């Protein structure tokens, strides 16, 4: 693997600028037409998906000149993948993969960002993406008497994730999830203090080796637990376990489900019955790594067929965001009596990012908050009282942006509303 393998894809970029906008059929006016936070904020073409490909391709041929500006371009991208979806409406080419490889190359060449180095240092020391002592990881579950997946026999391993484990404001998500699972009679367990980071965010930041270390350790832990199904409420963890582990042939036959997928299944099986009314008008924010980037990895290797077209033997199937997780969270929300869901303009495969991904919330928090404020403005335009999401990183970033902008929009996770209804 490496940037070189995407030279053909990068050369396909025709600078049409589609990567900056939501798919053209979906543009509903002058507002909310942009899909890429980076180009919307920084304006130079270099900050767009196409711009990044053009730079990478040029530098691959002419040498990598790591100026301060180049590092600024590389780091100020949430790696949200929206550029790829818009491009791939029309084009057959990889977009996010070469951008990811470019970032990995930057790290491997030693041109890192101090703020992200600090995050990775903590990961190496504490197996966590956020600050907090290793022993504190399971504190959220104190008093809940949950099974220990590392010692007890369980069917479902509930992976909580770093942010939910260490940020006291997010404990409610894990606690709600645990209570819902109990109500449904699921035989589940947690790893508590022995849970470790999935490594997904390290991968987004370009630290591939650290990601792989975490992945290997996690799969060993899960194997020991005997659980065949992993459930998580964090979109970053979800994408790491389901997509990235599979990409690197580490997932095996582990079934990976997001809480919204699992709860949707339990509702449909009649094991959960949302019956209490929750009177609330809401809009739903699709987390990037549950939505477009949550679609399964497609294993492929082949060669370009010589000739006029950019086609391969065997044919290459592109991940265009088509098969992300869009309906389960909506199904869960629509099953709650009293909840009125109004959609924003930018949804599903072309949803606007919350701003937290790709290390941006750590390396450039102002940009993360700017991105979140754009989304909050869009949510408010629907007339909803609350924005509901399905990822702690989104919820945290939105709440911080709301706090700094004085808005009174409420933010919930799907599990919070579901718990109120059952």
């Amino acid at each position: 693997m490496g940037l070189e393998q995407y030279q053909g894809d990068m050369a396909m970029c025709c600078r049409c600028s589609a990567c900056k906008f939501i798919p053209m059929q979906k543009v509903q006016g002058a507002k909310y037409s942009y899909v890429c936070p980076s180009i919307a904020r920084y304006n130079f073409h270099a900050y767009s998906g196409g711009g990044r490909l053009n730079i990478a391709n040029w530098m691959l041929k002419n040498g990598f000149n790591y100026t301060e500006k180049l590092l600024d371009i590389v780091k100020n991208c949430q790696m949200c993948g929206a550029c790829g979806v818009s491009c791939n409406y029309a084009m057959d080419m990889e977009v996010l993969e070469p951008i990811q490889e470019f970032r990995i190359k930057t790290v491997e060449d030693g041109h890192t960002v101090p703020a992200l180095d600090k995050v990775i240092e903590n990961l190496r020391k504490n197996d966590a993406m956020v600050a907090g002592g290793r022993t504190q990881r399971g504190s959220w579950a104190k008093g809940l008497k949950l099974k220990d997946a590392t010692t007890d026999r369980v069917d479902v391993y509930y992976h909580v994730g770093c942010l939910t484990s260490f940020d006291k404001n997010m404990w409610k998500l894990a606690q709600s999830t645990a209570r819902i699972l109990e109500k449904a009679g699921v035989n589940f367990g947690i790893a508590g203090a022995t849970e470790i980071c999935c490594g997904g965010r390290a991968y987004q930041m370009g630290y591939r080796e650290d990601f792989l270390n975490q992945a290997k350790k996690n799969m060993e832990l899960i194997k020991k637990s005997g659980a065949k199904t992993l459930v998580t409420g964090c979109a970053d963890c979800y994408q790491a376990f389901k997509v990235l582990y599979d990409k690197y042939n580490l997932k095996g036959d582990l079934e990976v489900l997001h809480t919204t997928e699992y709860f949707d299944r339990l509702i449909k099986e009649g094991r959960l019955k949302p019956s209490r009314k929750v009177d609330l008008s809401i809009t739903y924010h699709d987390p990037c790594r549950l939505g477009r980037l949550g679609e399964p990895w497609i294993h492929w290797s082949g060669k370009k067929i010589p000739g006029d077209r950019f086609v391969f033997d065997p044919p290459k199937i592109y991940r265009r965001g088509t098969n992300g997780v869009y309906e389960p969270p909506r199904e869960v929300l629509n099953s709650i009596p009293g909840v009125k869901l109004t959609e924003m303009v930018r949804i599903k495969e072309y949803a606007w990012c919350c701003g937290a991904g790709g290390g941006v919330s750590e390396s450039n928090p102002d940009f993360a908050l700017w991105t979140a404020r754009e989304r909050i403005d869009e949510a408010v335009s629907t007339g909803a009282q609350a924005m509901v999401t399905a990822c702690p990183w989104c919820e945290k970033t939105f709440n911080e942006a709301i706090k700094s902008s004085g808005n009174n929009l409420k933010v919930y996770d799907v599990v919070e509303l579901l718990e109120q209804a059952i």
Partner: protein
Amino acid sequence: MALSKEVYREFEDVVGPENISDDPAIMPAYYATDFAAVILPGNTQEVQAVVKLCNKHKLKFRPICTGWTGMFPKGIVLLDLRRMNRIIEINEKNMYAVVEPYVISAELQAELFKRGLNFCIKGAGSNCSALLRGHGHMDQTTSGDDRNHLAIEWVTPEGEIVRSGSLGSIGEWFSGDGPGPSIRAILTSAVPPGVTPGVFTKAAVKLYPWPGPSSFPVVGKSPKYTLSEIPPNMMARYYSFPSVEKMWKAEITIGENEIAYELMGFNAAMVACNITTCNEEEEEVFKKISKEVQGPGFFIIIGGYSAEDFAYKKKVLEKIISDNDGKSLKMVEDPEIEGILLCQCTRISASIRETFRAGGAFNSIPIMGQRDLCIKWAIGAGKAKEPLIKKGLIVDDGGAFFGWGVEQGHLGKTEIFCKYDPSNAEAKKAVEQWQKEQTMRAFKEHYFASTMGNLEEVGPALCNFHLWWRKITKSLDPNGVSPEGGALV
């Protein structure tokens, strides 16, 4: 060719430090060359100040918008107009909209649909500037080229702000010709190299009635969007004909009866591009369609302003098609395919599928004029493609051309593509040779092709326009700072 610190600071004082860069990392995103700097002006005054500085320091500049075209010489100052992205006004009563250069067509059109209006979107696609001049799929009812530009605000190569037509006299945008200064011939010139120098900072574009919905009911996931239902009083079909003559007869009769909202002379290959989601599928569908079509054809959209109007237009269409032995392509009668074509071919959202998807590059020769005559030329250009197809150098589209009616067939445009892999040097050379030879043939046979380049040969045949144009540009741009033009790209 870097700017000195002092000169850089002068530009920086105009646009602010966030909006200028001479960092080498910025350049290759735009083009594989070294620009003196890339500057992002935010309004007309900033454009003017930047242009004046370019004159002061004798620096060549070039503006761009979304930018999938153009040549960018080394050492120029690149003005990326991305920050100038405001819709200034939509005047429903007088049917015009005023936009800045980086308003894309999809944005303006979506706003217009809500008001029962539409405008000419250029064939390059709705991801391009709404200010862009040129032709497109809907020319049958929305016309094309300079005929859609009303008043224009223009920063000349020397940095003067010129306001044309009614804007220059009474501050209104409704006319490009008067009351006030009409400089249409300069502002909208397309004859090579007569792409107007300077920077267009705002323009009023003409609006037209829209018989369709306020927004299309698009469902599904990318790349397979469909419509949940065909909007009322709308219909899309593809008809093929036993001969060019019969197709032309049908086209002109449709125009005389003013029944088509859109008449796009797609060939079978372009239909396949539009309705498929990847290259492999496109090849397969093209083969399938090729077996079903009986000859050249066109795609047509009928839009009624009432149920009665729609029924009338449909009936007239059926008669014309029948009179000329036209045959409807069954695949397009499928509501799923019909729906997406209705949406794509009015929202102009699949141009990239038609052009770049196959191999990554295409060369084109567009010919403007009466369709039946242009088609005769295009058949020859298509035959000249056949050896390239046989050698596998270009995408096999059956050697076909395409085109469309303009203003109900008063005018027309015919165009022919060669799509290829630009990394294949042999293919690139062969396509360039084909383009050169066929353009020269067009010139000799008295057609107008916008790819005509050698002015010393072309100019004398056209009243020595090139000598006049050189005098005009010399007078507008005495310092030679805006040689590339491209103001509406």
